């Protein structure tokens, strides 16, 4: 089925309007020797057959609706109120494109304006764009933006080693063709010494809070880091977890210049890692260096309020090789999901989700810490993720857990392989709990870990 509605009569009529006798005559510019190649694909299926095949394929996965998981590490299971998918499934939103014609795109434009406003509220920043691909690319674009704010005259970006390893890898990918050096993310021990690393060639320093291991950064240390950065005219970038931001002081409160992070937890399902959405917010003074689509409020010829894509002189279709990013299509439908999710929960609901995450993770941590053979590695305050050391390789523990119907935490020796030698033994596990975990599930996990050792 090709979804082509042309009838045979219609086709003949159209060919005669064009003045050709067959559709082949429309392709004479294509080199003859390469025309009509054999394409080796499986034979087409009917809708029923294709759904049956995909259903079968999807069922060979372990579905986290049916099996408990304690994985987090940048992708989080949160409850999705039913309204979210109800709205994002609407054809008017999901089968539109970039709102180039504002008069017939006010729905998307206003929803994006609301999303931007909510991200500003959550991060305590002044301006937010209409999204990036994910948290990792938002960080990479934040680094590039800081580089451009300093006019490309400085060359060092300091990344905390406690930033998600995949995020740091993406930053390295993005800057490999530019005269930028990534420093300080080689050893965890450097985390507390970041301020000392800032010099006159540094254009930004980036930290994650809570960090990749779930730890919350000390407020005074964060303020001191911002001051140290600003004293050298460098920018502070903070990678955040938006659910935690509902409970904790936002980056705007401690001197952050660019706030980025993964907004998947705000209303987007796990989907095996994508599509997700990077939020990106900064201070007003830097808005002209920000990448991505931005919606602004204005008035129409009758003085009525309306919304348009604005400050597009920043973007690739105007600036071309002078643009600082090539981003155009982003994650608009995911941003809509975030706006609906945040509206639905409101400040009290969002804070409640954050509190549930916090308390459940701490209950789990206390339970595991009491087990013989298991140690808490995390010693600082944490949000909803923490690291434990297991009495045997995480790989073996997780295999046992899987037999109990549980997907355990992340084997830290298995992440960041693209970043060179890892710092972890095969015994450390990163665990995550959210509001989806009941006390019964947490107890079941504690019990299963005890059995597994």
């Amino acid at each position, binding site marked *: 089925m090709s*979804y082509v509605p042309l009838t045979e009569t219609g086709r003949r009529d159209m060919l005669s309007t064009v003045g050709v006798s067959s559709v082949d005559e429309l392709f004479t510019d294509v080199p003859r020797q390469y025309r*009509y190649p054999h394409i080796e694909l499986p034979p087409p299926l009917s809708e029923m057959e294709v759904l049956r095949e995909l259903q079968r394929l999807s069922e060979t996965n372990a579905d986290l609706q049916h099996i408990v998981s304690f994985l987090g590490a940048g992708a989080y299971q949160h409850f999705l109120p039913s309204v979210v998918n109800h709205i994002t499934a609407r054809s*008017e939103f999901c089968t539109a494109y970039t709102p180039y014609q504002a008069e017939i795109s006010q729905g998307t434009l206003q929803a994006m304006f609301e999303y931007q406003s909510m991200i500003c509220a959550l991060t305590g920043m002044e301006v937010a764009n209409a999204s990036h691909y994910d*948290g990792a690319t938002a960080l990479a674009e934040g680094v590039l933006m800081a580089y451009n704010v300093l006019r490309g005259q400085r060359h060092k970006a300091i990344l905390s080693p406690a930033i998600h390893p995949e995020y740091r890898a993406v930053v390295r990918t993005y800057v490999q063709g530019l005269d930028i050096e990534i420093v300080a993310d080689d050893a965890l021990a450097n985390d507390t010494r970041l301020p000392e690393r800032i010099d006159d060639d540094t254009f930004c320093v980036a930290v994650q809070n809570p960090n990749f291991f779930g730890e919350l950064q000390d407020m005074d240390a964060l303020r001191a880091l911002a001051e140290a950065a600003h004293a050298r005219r460098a920018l502070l970038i903070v990678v955040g977890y938006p659910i935690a931001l509902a409970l904790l002081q936002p980056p705007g409160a401690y001197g952050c210049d660019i706030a980025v992070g993964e907004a998947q937890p705000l209303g987007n399902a796990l989907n095996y*890692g994508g599509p997700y959405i990077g939020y990106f917010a900064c201070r007003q003074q830097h808005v002209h260096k920000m990448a991505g689509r931005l919606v602004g409020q204005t008035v129409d010829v009758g003085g009525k309020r309306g919304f348009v894509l604005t400050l597009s002189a920043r973007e690739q279709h105007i600036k071309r090789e002078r643009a600082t990013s*090539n981003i155009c299509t*982003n994650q608009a439908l995911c941003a809509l999901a975030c706006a609906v999710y945040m509206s639905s929960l*409101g400040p009290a609901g969002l804070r409640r989700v954050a509190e549930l995450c916090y308390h459940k993770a701490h209950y789990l941590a206390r339970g595991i810490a009491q087990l013989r053979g298991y140690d808490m590695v995390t010693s600082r*305050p944490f949000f909803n993720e923490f690291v434990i050391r297991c009495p045997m390789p995480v790989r073996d523990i997780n295999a046992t857990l899987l037999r109990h119907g549980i997907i355990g935490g992340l084997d830290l020796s298995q992440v960041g392989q693209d970043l060179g030698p890892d710092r972890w033994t095969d015994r450390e596990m990163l665990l995550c709990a959210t509001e989806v975990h009941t006390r019964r599930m947490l107890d079941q996990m504690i019990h299963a870990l005890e059995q597994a050792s």
Partner: protein
Amino acid sequence: MMQAASEPLIFELSSPGRSGCSLPELDVPPADIPQDMLRHDLPLPEVSEIDVVRHYVRLSQLNHAVDIGFYPLGSCTMKYNPKVNDAAAQLSGFVHTHPYQPADTTQGNLCLLYELQQALCAISGFDAVALQPAAGAQGELAGVLIIRAYHQAHADQRRKVILIPDSAHGTNPASTAMCGYQTVEIKSDARGNVDLEDLRAHCSHGVVGMMLTNPNTLGLFDEHVCEVAEMVHRCGGLMYGDGANLNAIMGIVRPADLGFDVMHFNLHKTFSTPHGGGGPGAGPVGVTARLAEYLPGPVVVRAAAPAPDSSDPQDAGRRFELHWPEHTVGRVKSFYGNFAVLVRAYTYIRMLGADGLREVSQAAVLNANYLRCKLQSTYRLAVDRTCMHEFVLAGPPPDARGVHTIDIAKRLIDLGHSHPPTVYFPLIVPEALMIEPTETESQETLDQFAADMIQIAAEAQADPQLLLDAPHHTPVRRLDEVRAARQPVVRYEAQPTKEEHGEPAHHR
């Protein structure tokens, strides 16, 4: 469809104490939270569930969309999105999988990704594909980085220049700059092809490669594409294909056969995944064998050992795993790409098969040529040639004075049958109107669009003011973009006075 009154901001519907959700009680003992870390206010809207639903449903009604009507937005391939694609992507076993689950628990996902890689290779003629890039622009970035890595591996670091035709998308030069390279613009000739003389003059050992969209943004298949590729290869450069216009040539010709070394696919365009109001899309990148080891990672490969306890005979002996190409340019985003978009594209390919995909391209090209012929006596063509899946008009009819392309676009909105075409692009055609009907539109829809365009041409002569004031019937009329840029208001700010705070919107 677009008669609704304007809608207040969700913040303006807020009333303290309202909530639109229910959450479970805390069932574990609470833990201490460090007090100095707590925030004190969170200025998000407080609304009930019905407020949320009505607000966003009303907003949705202010949009045009493919499911409402014709959307001939050139270069964007706004074809119909089959609903089976969404049904497949919403299967629980796909939606509720975590990217770090052990590979043994995600064999369904990995199998789908592997099969999609294979299908894209078959369609394009490339030897390897990475699915990770999230959008076409990110595919471009990955592709140029691959070319850069190739030259570096061959100790060839003098090359600094990427050749880009003057008709190219703005993302091409922007991607080039992100990789630290310079752009040299190559002219187009009178038939809309790459100007071979100009290209020859710029081919040197400083050339990294060339980025070429083919069919190009004029909707034309470059008549010398093989010669272009040969010239670039002869000076040691590589050919990057911008796959934005693949919808014209599936099953007609494979880009790799034409001499392209790297190309990105826009799955949201060609393979019919919903555009989402501006994403999410997917921009996989394909390469020839000599570049396969530079692909971004991880990619999916078949594992040597069969699945240990596969109960399904169809999967017997097939096990899939993630793999890092040896000299990878690295990761371009976290995890493995926009998976739910990839599921939709795979579903589409499975529904159509090779013959269906060829039929798509044939019909897309027939539809575009039919519309071209219907309009070419009223409007001027940018280049008078058989087009591929789209064509470009050189602005308003010659005898319409004082009327611009923007006015035609806005008048089309008034007539209510269609979204306007892409306007003012490509940049080499002043006042360009770029029309891409796609294959999923019927002859009747095309006839209606042609009739509307011809009516507007007549109105442009008889009553140009009608066009200059258009649109007349939309929820908002022409918006002041200059004001939006000069006095940027990019977020909601609560009104300072108590009376206004929390009140429903005052319509200005």
